[in-house]
């Protein structure tokens, strides 16, 4: 019973089951925390309650304002529309729940020694691969409800654009910013971040690269000392000759 509807929906939507691991060592796999589903459930209930209340008031108002001398066909039409709206709402309810549940279950956050791979989504499946060497910074975000539930979102950013408009659209679920990878709803954000940063540290030219001075300092000092000795010696040669 449990696996039945899942398999049917996944088959119908052609959702690939498991993502292939990113290149590099066998990855560490992180998953969304159980409380992430609770958070989504709260959002889902809130949205559907609002929708339900709105459509119920709309229907009662429509029926209440119906003039007494409405012909029979008019009454049937109103009843039909009300029924259709309720049916659509119910469909939205069940479908929304199924997608939300699967979206929670089919999330992979994989980190190998070279890359991060994030796979998410049901209607639109996204697989992001970000090389650790290209990461600029990480951000942890936590809202008040997330804090109560003990979860947080970790963002990994690479160099480049992503206007504020794209991020705003992302907040409304419209578009996905391209230079950001999201680890949504993890309950071990600090650990996750330290794993990422440790990986990034192994790549000395991470991001757009660090200043190279520090790396060459030893060799440069050596070179300077040698050159100075050479000059002193040449001065001696010149002096005696």
């Amino acid at each position, binding site marked *: 019973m449990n696996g039945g509807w899942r398999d049917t929906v996944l088959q119908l939507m052609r959702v690939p089951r498991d993502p292939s691991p990113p*290149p590099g060592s066998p990855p560490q796999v992180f998953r969304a925390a159980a409380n992430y589903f609770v958070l989504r459930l709260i959002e889902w209930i809130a949205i559907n309650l609002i929708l339900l209340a709105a459509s119920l008031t709309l229907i009662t108002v429509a029926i209440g304002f119906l003039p007494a001398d409405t012909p029979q066909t008019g009454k049937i039409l109103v009843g039909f529309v009300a029924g259709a709206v309720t049916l659509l709402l119910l469909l939205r309810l069940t479908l929304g729940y199924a997608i939300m549940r699967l979206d929670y279950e089919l999330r992979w956050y994989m980190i190998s020694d070279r890359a991060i791979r994030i796979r998410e989504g049901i209607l639109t499946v996204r697989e992001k691969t970000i090389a650790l060497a290209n990461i600029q910074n990480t951000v942890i975000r936590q809202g008040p409800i997330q804090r109560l539930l003990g979860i947080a979102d970790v963002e990994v950013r*690479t160099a480049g654009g992503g206007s504020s408009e794209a991020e705003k659209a992302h907040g409304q679920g419209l578009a996905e910013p391209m230079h950001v990878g999201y680890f949504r709803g993890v309950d071990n954000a600090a650990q996750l971040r330290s794993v990422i940063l440790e990986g990034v540290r192994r790549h000395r*030219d991470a991001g757009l690269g660090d200043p190279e001075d520090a790396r060459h300092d030893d060799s440069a000092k050596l070179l300077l000392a*040698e050159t100075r000795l050479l000059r002193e010696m040449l001065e001696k040669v010149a002096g005696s000759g």
Partner: protein
Amino acid sequence: MTPVTSMTPEQRVFSIHRPEPALWKYYIIGSLFLGPFFFIALIPLYFRYYTMRYDFDSEGISMRWGILFRREITLTYARIQDIHLVSNLIERWLGLARIQIQTASGSATAEMTIEGVKQYEVVRDYLYTRMRGVISQKTATSAPSDTLHQVAEEMRAIRRLLGELLEKRR
């Protein structure tokens, strides 16, 4: 079937020049969502599909399309920063996915979107092996400091030689 599987991933990627016919189907289905005005979207998509060409070579990709307004995008593998694989429901039904390629430029949308490829995982993995941060690593860490060390060695040798010269003179 056998010739495709016996090819190396690189050869398989290099052999892609045209999008699959499934992309045209996808365009048709997508434009049907406009109802009676479907042809407004479909006509430019028709030309886009029939003029779309890919060229993968050892250094980079170029992609071009267009009849009236032509567009050609060229980028080198070494500048690729993120590779995303995106597919919606209809694309998955047709066995397609979009490969969105990002460089570090300022634009919010993908620099290049490779559409209509059924071997998208092969292309994605190949691009990954060639992208920024994967190849540059080995050379970047060793080369510059090594050369500096070598210069220092050379200088030391010169000093020794001069020292000998000085001894002889005395």
